[in-house]
C-alpha cells in the first residue's frame, strides 16, 4: 500500500514542476523567489489559461527572462508587472485590475448577492404581515343574517 502511494506521488510530482528551465533560474534565491511570485500573476499570451511559470511557449520563456532581468535591474515586483502590463495590457495579468473597464466584473457578484438577499428579505417580511381584515358592510351583514335565519327555520322543519 505504502509503495503504491509513493509510486503515485512520484508519478504526480513532474506535473507540479514549473516550465522554468535551469538556465533561466537566478543564482540569488531571494530574487528567484520574487521572480516566481511575479510570474504567477502573468498570463501566457499563447496558452491563455496558464501562468508564464507553467507554460512552455516561447513567448512565456521570453517573459520569464524579462521579469528576471527587470528584477535584477532593481525593479520592485509591482514595477516588473507594470512593465509587462504596459506592453501586453491588462489582459496579461491573471488578476484583473480594478478600473472603469472591470467595474462589472468586480462589482457584479456582491451586487447580485445583495439583490438576492434584498428580494429574499422583502418576501419574508411580506409573508409575515397578516392581511388586514375587512369588516362586512351593511348589506352583507343583512344577507348573512337572512341566511342564518333561513337555516334556523329549515332546521325547525
Amino acid at each position, binding site marked *: 500500500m505504502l509503495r503504491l502511494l509513493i509510486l503515485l506521488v512520484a508519478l504526480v510530482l513532474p506535473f507540479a514542476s514549473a516550465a522554468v528551465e535551469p538556465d533561466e533560474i537566478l543564482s540569488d534565491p531571494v530574487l528567484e523567489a520574487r521572480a516566481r511570485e511575479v510570474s504567477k500573476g502573468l498570463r501566457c*499570451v*499563447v496558452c*491563455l489559461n496558464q501562468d508564464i511559470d507553467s507554460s512552455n511557449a*516561447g*513567448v512565456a520563456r*521570453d*517573459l520569464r527572462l*524579462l521579469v528576471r532581468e527587470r528584477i535584477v535591474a532593481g525593479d520592485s515586483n509591482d514595477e516588473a508587472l507594470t512593465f*509587462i502590463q*504596459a*506592453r*501586453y*495590457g*491588462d*489582459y496579461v495579468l491573471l488578476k484583473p485590475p480594478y478600473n472603469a473597464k472591470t467595474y462589472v466584473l468586480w462589482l457584479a457578484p456582491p451586487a447580485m448577492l445583495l439583490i438576492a438577499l434584498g*428580494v429574499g428579505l422583502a418576501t419574508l417580511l411580506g409573508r409575515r404581515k397578516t392581511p388586514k381584515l375587512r369588516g362586512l358592510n351593511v348589506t352583507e351583514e343583512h344577507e348573512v343574517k337572512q341566511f342564518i335565519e333561513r337555516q334556523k327555520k329549515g332546521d325547525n322543519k
Partner: protein
Amino acid sequence: MIRILALLPLSIAVIFGGFFLWGLNPDRDPNEVPSVLIAQPAPAFELDPVVGLHTPGLSRSDLVGTETAVVMNVFASWCVPCRAEHAVLTSLAEKDGIRLFGINYKDKPEDAIRWLAELGNPYERIGSDLSGRAGIEWGISGVPETFIINTDGTVLFRHVGPIVGEGAIGKFREALLQAGALPSGGL
C-alpha cells in the same frame, strides 16, 4: 411593485440570453488578446539588419514621419503561416505600392536569407530580432503579426495571424484604405 417583480424572471432570462448569444457568436474569437497598442505610439526598438542580407535594419524612426502610413510585418522562416501570407504581402507591396517593413523574429540569418531568396523579398527594411525582445515591445503573442502605423507613429491596426483568405485580406485592405496606406486609392 408586484407587477415589476413579476417581470424580474423575464428580464433575468433576457440578460442571460444576451450573454449566451454573445458567447455563441461564431465570429467571436475567445483566444483573441486585445492589443493595447491601438491608437498608441509605436514602441521604441532598434534592430540590426539580418546578417548577410543586403536589406537595412529597422528601428522605430524608420516607421515614423513617413509620407503615408506604413505596414510592419513580423515573420520568420520557421513559421509556416508566414509562407502562406507572403504572397499576399508581396502583392500589396508590388502591385498596390504599400510600404512594407519587416521584423525577422527569432530566426537564423542563413534561414531567413534562404527563405527570402526562395519567396522574394518585398520588405524595404528588415530588422533581425534574435532575442524576441522587440517582439515583446510590440506585444506580439506569435508570428505572423502585422501592424499598420500612421505617419505620426501611432499604431492604427493590428492583425494577429496570417493575412490569408478573403475575409482577412478584405479587412486588411479596408484598414489600409482607411489609414491611407494605399497610394492608388485601393483600386
